[in-house]
């Protein structure tokens, strides 16, 4: 998008003949840029539209506001975690602990509230605690030199243990939460659930940051080739810690929103969430090798998974099939992307 805007004024300043040449050249570059940059997102939008059209014929309930609202709701909160995960994947990390950390935020917030703290302060502390867990993971990775996979696996178990410890293994009921707080998870603004608004606000915010801010450019550099980033003077360790912390904070936010939505804190919540979150980010174009991915793409990935799930439910597909189908979608999406990229690479290497 930015390339299109930036190139236009430049062509005007040149004289006629050069102008024609330059526009042609720029168009080629533009097209290729759009092609590479947009291929994933455009493909996902197309697939989502196709499924929507097909479903609108297959089920009379599909094209209703209730259904869309339910679908949006179903991935909005988890979507907040997807945003954090995508950032961490871009820097070359991964976080298996998100499900446990979401649950921990919920449990800490709930416990502090039950102990008499006001829910806003309790939530803030819960979110910061989750950010701190991310920060600790970043420290383990950069100081000791461990891999994110292992560190977050350990913290996944630790955070789950903490949740069970705090609640002594039993769900906490939080029906006494004040309505002003419950509004975060249950309220509507002009018929639109607040959760969805919050989610899209975060998405737009982080998408813009990732595209245009210098600090997030360094995230891409670090993820793409840490050595190259280091030699450009980038403090890659700090960047990695930042991303891990951010992922923890966003997981904390999601946990607090879940708490407000359900009015309860269950220590078993969020088991397996990391897998669907990673799947969404990867379907949306993030690479496990780091260096690529966009928030917008990841959100489309999450939307696709949610759409497929609700379509399968509407079509009365047995519940056992749903996981199998979602797994296959992940496989197909990633393979298609990989194969396309390989062709592109070999073609340009030869020219």
């Amino acid at each position, binding site marked *: 998008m*930015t*390339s299109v805007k*930036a190139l236009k004024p*430049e062509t005007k300043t040149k004289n006629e003949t050069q102008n024609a040449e330059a526009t042609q050249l720029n168009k080629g*570059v533009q097209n*290729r*840029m759009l092609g*590479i940059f947009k291929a994933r997102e455009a493909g996902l939008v197309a697939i989502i539209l196709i499924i929507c059209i097909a479903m609108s014929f297959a089920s009379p309930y599909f094209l209703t506001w209730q259904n869309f609202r339910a679908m949006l709701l179903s991935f909005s909160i988890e979507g907040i975690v997807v945003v954090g995960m995508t950032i961490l994947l871009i820097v070359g990390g991964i976080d298996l602990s998100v499900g446990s950390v979401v649950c921990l935020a919920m449990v800490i917030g709930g416990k502090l509230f039950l102990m008499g703290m006001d829910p806003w302060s309790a939530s803030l502390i819960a979110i910061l605690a989750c950010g701190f867990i991310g920060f600790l993971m970043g420290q383990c990775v950069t100081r000791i030199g461990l891999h994110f996979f292992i560190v977050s696996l350990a913290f996944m178990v630790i955070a789950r243990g903490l949740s069970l410890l705090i609640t002594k293994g039993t769900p906490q009921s939080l029906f006494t939460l004040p309505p002003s707080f419950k509004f975060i998870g249950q309220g509507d603004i002009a018929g639109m659930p607040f959760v969805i608004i919050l989610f899209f606000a975060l998405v737009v915010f982080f998408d813009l940051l990732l595209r*245009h*801010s*210098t*600090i997030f*450019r*360094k995230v*891409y*550099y670090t*993820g*793409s*080739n840490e*050595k*190259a*980033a*280091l*030699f*450009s*003077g*980038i*403090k890659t360790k700090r960047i990695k810690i930042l991303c891990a912390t951010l992922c923890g904070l966003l997981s904390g936010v999601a946990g607090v929103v879940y708490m407000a939505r359900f009015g309860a804190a269950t220590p078993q919540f969020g088991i397996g969430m990391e897998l669907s979150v990673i799947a969404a980010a990867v379907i949306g174009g993030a*690479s496990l090798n780091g*260096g*690529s991915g966009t928030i917008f793409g990841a959100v489309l990935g999450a939307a696709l998974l949610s759409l497929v799930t609700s379509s399968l439910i509407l079509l009365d597909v047995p519940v056992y099939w749903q996981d199998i189908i979602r797994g296959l979608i992940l496989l197909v999406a990633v393979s298609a992307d990989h194969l396309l990229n390989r062709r*592109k*690479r070999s073609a*340009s*290497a*030869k020219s």
Partner: protein
Amino acid sequence: MQPILEVHDIHKSFGPVQALRGVQLSLMPGEVHALMGENGAGKSTLMNILSGVFPPDQGRIHFKGRDIILSDPAKAQAHGIGLVHQEIALCPDISVAENILMAATNARTSFLMNDRELRERAKKVLADLMPIPVDEKVGNLPIASQQIVEIAKALTLDCDVLIFDEPTAALTDSEAEALFRIIADLKARNIGIIYISHRMAEIFAISDRITVFRDGTFIDTLMTEDTSPDEVATKMVGREILHQFPAKNPDLKGGMSSVMSVRELSDDGFLKDISFDLREGEVLGLGGLIGAGRSELAHAICGLSRKTTGSVAMRGKPLNIESYAESIRNGLVYLSEDRKGSGVFLDLSIAANITALDLRHVSSKGFVLQREEEKRAEELGRLLSLRCAHVSQPVSALSGGNQQKVAIAKMLSVHPDIIIFDEPTRGVDVGAKSEIYTILRNLASKGVGVLVISSEMPELIGLCDRIIVLHEGRVAGEVEDENMTEEKIMKLASGLSRQNAVVKERELAS
């Protein structure tokens, strides 16, 4: 005139290994100072110290009149010392423009990117070098262009000292020429340049002084105009190298039988109608610019990539190879140009590497017999005069030249009839180079078909009996005897002249 940079008595050790024992170097502004030495002599260690990658254990770095401490790469760049890396350190997923100006982006204080300015600046830098599209992702570029991006990146740093660590290793001669023009330009701007290379010819073409290191010690600093390549080589290895290239095979003329004949080989869209013969007892060279399809041809011949039409025959018997495994079974092996990437397993032992292609000979009932494996590795190692403490050492502990010998030993373990060597001496020092040449020549005289791909023209000319030159996926011609000159090869490689007639004749004759 005062030197701009002086290093005194630098020591550095990594664990028990002493990489540098008190080396010195002084650099004048506007000077091209070549640093030479075999692999492991400590050149790269000193350059890493100068660019802030790690600190010296001992010693002083005196820069622009005062002592400085370089704690990290950013510090070194801030002082004005830039490094062009030997191994390409770029972000493959990021655009050319962003890669070139990465350090500038890092130094930016503003919160938002200015992509337009970034592209303009990148275009300006590349204008002097090579027309590379600045919006392309670096990972989509061929290696030579990536090397240019790496160089462009260093040029954007406002440096007083610029270090080039083997910048021409992946470049063809014409690209190297462009680089030398830039270096001359930098020199005129009074920038001090430290230049590391194994290519003697270019050192003598562009440097003012030459400093030689050996085994982590300073040997000598010489004025380039007062010395000779032989003197430098002698100082580097500490003994005299008599002949760099072994004698060619004198009785090759015509009559020898063909070991391998390739006929009208094409792949989907790039290689076109390639035909040639590899004759018994000869070392055949495959020349051409980078991107001419030399490696692609090798891949197509030995089943690493698919060929669409054409045939390959070995000693008259047609070969139908679908995979590289089949190729190995048929006695046709390929030594990759990318030694660290696909030539050897760096973390595995020398023995495990050497026997990797032929585990059956050293195992019984599915278990690898370690003693057999080591015995076999030692045999082959001796044959190639491999220098190592023990064959159980990891390959990563060896110098480039010895790593390459391990890779060659791996090929020999299956008793191949034909070996294709892709850049066999890349990143290998002078002493080991001449040993590898001897190995190739000996193989050829024992009747093994030897096909050598190389970007270094003096190497092809010195080593080969005959050279086939490719241009854009086609055979541009072949040279032999007195026609084997850089000029002739260059003309063919750049597509200026074609000798299709010669090739056609040969086809008719066979």
